[in-house]
């Protein structure tokens, strides 16, 4: 208690960083599987993409969907609710599923124009469904049923393993695993790629001169601020259309350079899912939420702009250090981890 009081008084940065009470879900309390690849908040519903089924948390209850219910595959990698229609698009290891009021429709590489059945990501923008697959990008026009495929033959994509996609009204970004970032301009219908200027996998020769690394895992574009955030397996990047700002464990508050996802709040703030905890950046200060790496006790660390790291007392933490994804629920958070799903209830 004394430590908490001390931390609150001594640290302006820490005082401003969000604190949470973490409630964790595992198979013991209804989650379909403890390996949670991603999570999506959909109004009062929460969708959990797990290794063994799609979980829906609603009114305090879990409902589980598996292939017997019509889901394309039991391994669910990503979920994208469509706020306009209420439908949910589901990326799986065996195709793309659309869940609409209890009905699953599935698209595979054999039954439809989808490029490949290994679907890592999906993003909904208007009538278009943008899909990231192991064989390039795919786009479904839901009005006409037309599929458009994007690969090395019609984009500057030298590696076709697309790992994530983020579509907005003006830009669409693909995280290409091993191929940097691909940008589609909706107005001009042109593609552009962003790559690591030093081309090195282990070292950074030209920091802040381009994308931090080629192995990208996630993209998050803030349209109102025109800021692109990128997560890679060797750090994070922020791009304002002119300048790159890169973040590494050694010179930022990132707990690790190994990032599974970045989710932007706005052009200044973002959440990072790493293999060593969940991190938040408010533009100056950093916070990390996790079970401590050594003791596994709940831990919250705040790093201020000067680089000073201060612990903040907390009695709860996300269910595991290996964080794969996060989504916002008002001021609350939902966090997908390698061992359970966590609900971060914001504490004032």
């Amino acid at each position: 208690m004394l430590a908490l009081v001390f931390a609150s008084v001594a640290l302006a940065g820490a005082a401003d960083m969000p604190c949470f009470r973490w409630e964790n879900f595992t198979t013991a309390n209804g989650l379909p599987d403890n390996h949670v690849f991603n999570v999506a908040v959909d109004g009062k519903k929460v969708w959990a993409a797990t290794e063994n089924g799609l979980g829906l948390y609603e009114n305090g209850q879990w409902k589980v969907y598996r292939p017997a219910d019509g889901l394309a595959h039991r391994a669910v990698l990503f979920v994208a609710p469509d706020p306009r229609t209420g439908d949910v698009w589901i990326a799986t290891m065996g195709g793309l599923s659309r869940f609409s009021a209890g009905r699953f429709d599935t698209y595979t590489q054999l039954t439809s124009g989808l490029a490949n059945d290994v679907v890592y990501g999906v993003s909904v923008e208007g009538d278009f469904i943008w899909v990231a697959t192991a064989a390039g990008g795919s786009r479904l026009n839901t009005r006409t049923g037309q599929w458009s495929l994007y690969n090395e033959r019609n984009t500057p994509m030298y590696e076709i393993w697309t790992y994530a996609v983020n579509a907005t009204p003006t830009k669409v970004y693909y995280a290409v695993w091993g191929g940097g970032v691909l940008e589609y301009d909706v107005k001009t219908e042109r593609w552009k790629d962003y790559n690591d200027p030093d081309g090195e996998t282990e070292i950074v020769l030209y920091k802040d001169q381009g994308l931090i690394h080629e192995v990208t895992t996630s993209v998050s574009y803030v349209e109102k601020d025109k800021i692109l955030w990128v997560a890679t397996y060797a750090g994070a990047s922020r791009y304002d259309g002119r300048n790159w700002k890169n973040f590494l464990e050694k010179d930022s508050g990132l707990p690790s350079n190994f990032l599974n996802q970045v989710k932007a709040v706005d052009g200044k703030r973002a959440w990072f899912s790493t293999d060593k905890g969940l991190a938040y950046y408010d533009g100056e200060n950093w916070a990390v939420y996790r079970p401590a790496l050594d003791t596994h006790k709940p831990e919250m660390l705040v790093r201020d702009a000067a680089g000073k790291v201060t612990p903040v007392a907390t009695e709860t933490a996300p269910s595991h250090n290996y964080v794969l994804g996060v989504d916002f629920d008002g001021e609350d958070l939902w966090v997908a981890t390698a061992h359970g799903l966590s609900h971060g209830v914001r504490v004032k």
Partner: protein
Amino acid sequence: MRRGAWLLAAGSMALMAMATEPRAARYPSPVELTISPDGLRLYALCEGTDEVAVYDLGSGKIIRRVPVGRVPKGMALSPDAKRLYVTNSWSDTVSELDTASLAVVRTLPTGFEPNAVIANGDFLFVANRISNDVSVIDLATGLEKKRLLAGRGASYLAASPDGSRIFCTHIYPKIGKFRAQPESEITVIDASCQMVVDRYRLPSAAGVFHVTLSPDGKLGMAAQIRPKNLVPLAHVEHGWVIGNSISVFGEDVGEVVQVPIDELDRYYTPPFAIAIAPDKSVAYVSTTGSDSVTVIDIGRLVKFLRSLGPVERRTLANDLSASANYVVARIPVGSGPKGMALSANGKRLYVANRTGDTISVVDTAARRVVNELSLGGPSTLTAERRGERLFFQAAFAFHGHFGCASCHLEATFDGMSWDLEPDGFGKDYVDNRLLEDVGDTGPFKWNGSNPNLETECGPRTEKYFYRSESYDGEQLEDLVSFIKSIPLRPNRYRAATGELTAAQERGKAIFERTRRKNGTPIAVQDQCGYCHSGPHYTNQKLFDVGTGKATDRSPLIDVPQLTNIALTAPYLHDGSARSLEEIWTVFNPNDTHGVTNDLQKDELNDLIEYLKTL
């Protein structure tokens, strides 16, 4: 006269004859009716003449014919009755009529083939039959706000009395697994958030037509057919072809239950429109092929349903004796009854007789037609029109069981694979095909066993389908004339200018290619355009393309026409390919059905984009 000059003269005479020949007669073909809330006007939607005929109900006279878009299919009044909205199914628009001036004031874009419309607050909900969705149109801007995923062939809509829910039904079943039971659904939309919130499953139901709610909102009814396509078509006398029923749902009855309207020795097919009396005492069901309206006592129906256990409810639709518990009358009306409208006091029921071009006025107390309003149109019937009446009639089959239109729903197809007994039980499964543009594509049936439509529709139908004396010679000629005259609907994937998109152009090049990607030549008979040639994309010959099944008697397949191929899944002769993609991703492992295995996935997509334009 030299030979050339003679030919020229003959040609000129032929052209003159064509020029002086009267334009093909257009029959009004009323499909839907709506009465104004004040009871003074009756609106009759005429799909044959592309107009709304407006009756003054006091005089029974038409006071105005308002031209709308092409092939209008549905209409609805705004809640204040100041606007009438009409779906123009071939124009992909909704016409907005000012009911005071009876003029079209706006034309609003929709999805592909809008069939029904509901005006709900500031929005229109439009069921689009080809795009399988419901358009939500903002009436302030006239723009489509979004589309909601419906079932296949979204065609009819109804709103709950409080306007909170919209119900959508579908003319075609879902595309399911090969040789699986058909299934349809009632799509339930929350009108306030404009999202689909439920889907009532309708197992074994295929063509589902009108849906309606009782005035208190506690009872919903949807007209439907239940095809028995998995068993051989050999038991007409046992009712094992098509069942005609109503899906009943809502607070009064609990979960959806399918209720038969047939009798043990008589069928009433297909049920199309439903009107529920204001006092909820009875429901009226028009049965297009039987030229009648079935009257259901709702009190008796609900009581009967409440007496059933869960298993009995599930199997009720196949119990042809059940209708005696709630069907209280069959009212003969005109030819081809479709849409209906009840007067506000429930004393008069108006029935649109599509192929009769009349409106039957039924005294609901006496349960008989007391007047008939004419929609005009040609005074004589052409061979095509006589054939059209035959096509939609079920009178020729044993016990009036079914007619051509029972499978070729509204002269199209039903999206299902059938086991037709003349081939032998479990042999030669056949995918039902679209009838548009078939006239010049003989031989017929996928194995080419019927050299012409007269054989296909005449003795074959009489012996194997109807199991009773069928059409005489003149009738058969008329029927074939009608089938040959079925117009080809606009292709939604081809620009009006005929210009192809980049993907379609690439696909066209693949369709027309003569070499593989590695440069080796493709044998002429293996090129797409060899078999799929000519105006209908068929050379009308038989080939073995490796898609035959063990159940087929012959591997030879009559090359199918490709016009509007995008609409008619499933594919292949037996309906085993659920999508155009599967024709090549699943059923062409050895390049025997065209050379496609050297194509990348995006190239196959391009080919399909081109095929959809044909």
